[in-house]
């Protein structure tokens, strides 16, 4: 029943997004003449100071072996593990929403407010075909750790499903659960718990 209502909400939200989205949607998600503004498409990433040191196979080198230019760790490497901690997370400049979606206790449904954030970042991804997203699901500390690990996965999967419905290719998204292991707030109170029940969107 829970799943049913969630799907209904998703379908509804997705259709709302489809109606309100300007015609800049890039259906094929490839850089081509159909794009109104190829590349960043209005979104700017802060790529300064981003280091890709130690990433295997991502250096572009000259004939004599000297590294040249800035390297995008993901360009041409769609099989790279998004969970690799060496992979930088890109920050969006002047982002309309923080890349965090919060959840009610023991829930993984996306409400209208959450769907706004999910839609926004789905659009960011659609407009920037080189970027991928790691969706980290978290829970608060209450209850059993293993149930929380599964709950975190449900939350990350809910965001992933919503983004796919909006039009992001599934292979550009990775959902992972961190369970209750990585709280942002350490306190054992309602305010801290509310901040810890979240999915973090990391643009890679």
């Amino acid at each position, binding site marked *: *029943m*829970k*799943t049913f209502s969630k799907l209904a909400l998703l379908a509804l939200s997705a259709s709302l997004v489809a109606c309100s989205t300007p015609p800049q949607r890039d259906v094929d998600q490839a850089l081509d003449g159909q794009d109104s503004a190829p590349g960043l498409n209005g979104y700017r990433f802060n790529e300064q100071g981003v280091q890709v040191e130690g990433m295997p196979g991502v250096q572009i080198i000259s004939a004599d072996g000297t590294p040249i230019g800035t390297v995008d760790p993901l360009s041409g490497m769609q099989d790279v*593990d998004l*969970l*690799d*901690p060496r992979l930088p997370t890109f920050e969006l400049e002047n982002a309309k929403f923080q890349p965090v979606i919060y959840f009610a206790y*023991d829930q993984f449904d996306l409400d209208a407010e959450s769907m706004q954030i999910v839609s926004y970042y789905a659009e960011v991804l659609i407009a920037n075909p080189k970027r991928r997203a790691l969706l980290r699901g978290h829970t608060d*500390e*209450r*209850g*059993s*750790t*293993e*149930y929380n*690990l*599964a*709950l975190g*996965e*449900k939350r990350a*999967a809910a965001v992933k499903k919503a983004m796919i419905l909006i039009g992001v290719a599934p292979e550009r998204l990775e*959902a*992972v*659960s*961190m*369970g209750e*292991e990585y709280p942002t707030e350490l306190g*054992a109170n309602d305010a801290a718990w509310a901040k810890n029940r979240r999915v973090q969107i990391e643009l890679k």
Partner: protein
Amino acid sequence: MGFRHFLAFSLTVFMSLVMTPSQAALTIEISEGFDNALPIAVVPFQGQGAISQPVSEVIGADLKRSGRFKPLDLRQMPSQPSELSEIAYDQWRTFNIDNMVIGKVIPTGNGLYQVEMRLVNVLRKEQVMGKRWNNIPESSLRQVAHQISDAIYEELTGVRGAFNTQIAYVTLERRAGKRFYTLEVADADGYNPQPILRSNQPIMSPSWSPDGSKLAYVSFEENRSQVYIQSLDGSFRQKVAGFRGINSSPTWSPDGKKLALTLSKNGNPDIYIMDVFTRDLQQVTFDRAIETEAAWAPDGRSIYFNSDRRGQPQVFQLFLDSKQEQRVTFEGKYNSNPEISPDGRHMAVVHGGNGYHIGLMDLQSKRFKVITKTYLDESPSFSPNGELILYAMNKGGRGQLAVVTLDGKSSQTLQVKNAEVRESAWGPYLKSSASNANP
């Protein structure tokens, strides 16, 4: 993927352990009194003053922790006999004590000891039990003390003692913004902690193999939850589940041949049963809800598990032959992490709602009661004799372990200095008794 390959890997993991042995020691603090506890006098053993771990104190603490005994305060003892002929029975009548433990620790050279104990019925004025251990090194004296506790417990309660067993748990230390997780194995009273694995990523859900030789657990060392099996002697470590999605909640079957675990490789957290030798996987739950935290019934024919298919976590039972499922918990809106007692009679769960406490269900009468009063309780596991439950809780803002009797009337805190303790699991009976202990 030969044996040598993962041996080499495991060696790199263990090197750091050898270099920095854990200094953490669990200390025990009695937090509640005992109502119907049996008074007993555990008299200081003659000669134990010269050793670091007084044998009688270990025995007294064991018996006290069980909730079934109330050892007489040392300062109240009218005398300290160490042999039958030294007991002046009249002196002890006023203390309302039925039983007395006396003994000796005698150095026999080369750092070895002989330990002698007698259990005496003070009313009948006769010896109930006498035992002697020869050639015991000082480092094994605690083990001998636990064996004495086991013998006394079984003699006086009719239930096998579980003092000479081990527990596993995870500690978390935060230093300079970094996190240090350690999987440790210690004696059931918290002494002799041995680190098994260190990581700066989470370690979860240790589960003992039924023979006590291996642990299965979840490690995030590759940045996602994956299931590993590791032998306690350090000779063997292998990743057994590293599928896409979560790999978690491993639990050994009672015959040690299978592992129930939770995988979401098909898009949803479901329970699978893995053949430990062939690694063949069989999916056993198929609902679109969360299904996790499998616990085997002692006969191995059914598993209990947590499912939120009704919108909130509740415990269900699945019969593996008939595939029939039934809901087991109905009390409140949150019952997770089921654990079944060794005799199959009781089930412990994490019970949510008004705080998070350990709940206990009598699986025959279906009666349910909350047995802890601590805060954010989780991770319950039964002692191998089914008399006690070890669990993790939050005290003073950090995770600690506690032991509680099934009636909830007596509980104790185990505390690790400078670290949070969590994810506890009580191990099985040890196959062989301590080293060369028995004469």
